[in-house]
C-alpha cells in the first residue's frame, strides 16, 4: 500500500525541501503545497525512476558529502595553481577506471563527483557500465590516483546505495 502511494520516499522529502528553499519560507501554506507536490511528482514521473533507492548508512553518506565538499575546495585551489603555472609542464592523461559499483545511480553520482574534484573530468562510461574514462589535467602516477579515487569515492557510495 505505502509502496504505491509513496514509491520514492527520499525523493519526496527532497522535493519538499527544495520547494521550501525555493520559496525561502516555512509558512504552513507552503508546507502543505510542497507536501502535495512531493506526493504527486514522484507518482507522475514514476517511469524515470526505475530503481528504488535505499540509503543504508546515513552517516557514511554524510561523511562522503563532507569529504567531497572538502575535496571541491582543495580541487579549486589545486586547479587554480595549475592554470596559473606553466601549461608546458602539465602532464594530462586519460585513465580508465574499472567500476565495481553496479547501481546506475551510484555510477552517475561517482562520475559527477569525479568531475567536481581534483583535476579530473569523467568523459565517457562504457555501455556495459563497467568502465569509466577519466581525463586528468595533471597526473604523475595513474594507478595511484585511480586507487585513491576508488577508495575515497566509490567505496562509500557502494556502502550507502543498495539496489533493490
Amino acid at each position: 500500500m505505502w509502496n504505491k502511494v509513496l514509491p520514492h520516499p527520499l525523493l519526496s522529502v527532497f522535493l519538499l525541501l527544495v520547494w521550501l528553499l525555493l520559496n525561502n519560507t516555512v509558512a504552513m501554506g507552503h508546507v502543505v503545497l510542497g507536501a502535495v507536490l512531493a506526493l504527486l511528482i514522484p507518482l507522475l514521473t514514476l517511469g524515470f525512476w526505475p530503481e528504488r533507492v535505499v540509503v543504508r548508512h546515513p552517516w557514511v553518506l554524510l561523511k562522503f558529502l563532507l569529504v567531497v565538499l572538502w575535496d571541491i575546495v582543495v580541487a579549486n585551489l589545486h586547479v587554480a595553481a595549475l592554470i596559473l603555472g606553466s601549461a608546458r609542464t602539465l602532464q594530462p592523461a586519460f585513465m580508465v577506471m574499472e567500476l565495481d559499483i553496479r547501481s546506475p545511480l551510484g555510477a552517475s553520482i561517482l562520475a559527477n563527483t569525479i568531475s567536481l574534484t581534483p583535476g579530473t573530468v569523467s568523459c565517457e562510461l562504457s555501455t556495459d557500465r563497467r568502465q569509466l574514462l577519466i581525463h586528468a589535467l595533471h597526473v604523475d602516477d595513474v594507478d595511484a590516483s585511480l586507487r585513491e579515487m576508488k577508495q575515497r569515492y566509490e567505496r562509500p557510495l557502494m556502502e550507502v546505495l543498495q539496489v533493490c
Partner: protein
Amino acid sequence: MLDAALAVLVLVGAFFTLVGSWGLAKMPDFFMRLHGPTKASTLGVGAVLVASALYFSFNTDGVSLHEVLVTLFLFMTAPVSAHMMAKAALHLKLKQVERTRSAVVESGVANSYDGTSFRRKE
C-alpha cells in the same frame, strides 16, 4: 566587519571565476580546457553565493537560503555538461596534446573506443 567579510568573499569568488576563464583561454587542447570552467568556477560561484546568503540574512527579515539551491543545481549540472562535452569531443576525435598519456593506446583513447569497452582490441 560584516562588510569586510562580504567583500573578501566576493573578491575570492571573482578571482576564482577569473582563473577559470583564464584556464579556458590558455590551455592547449579541448580536454584540458574543460578543467578550468568546471572546477575553478564552482568555488568562485560558491563564494559569491555564500556572500549573498550572508548579506540577505543579515539585512532583511529571516534567513536567506535560496543560495543553497543554486549551489546544489550547479553541482548537479556542471559535471553533466562537462561530461557531455567530453563525450562529444571524443566522438569527434578532437586533437589532444601529444604528451597526453593514455591507458588504452598510444594514439589516444578516441581512436580505440569501440562503443562498449575501452580495452585495447587484440
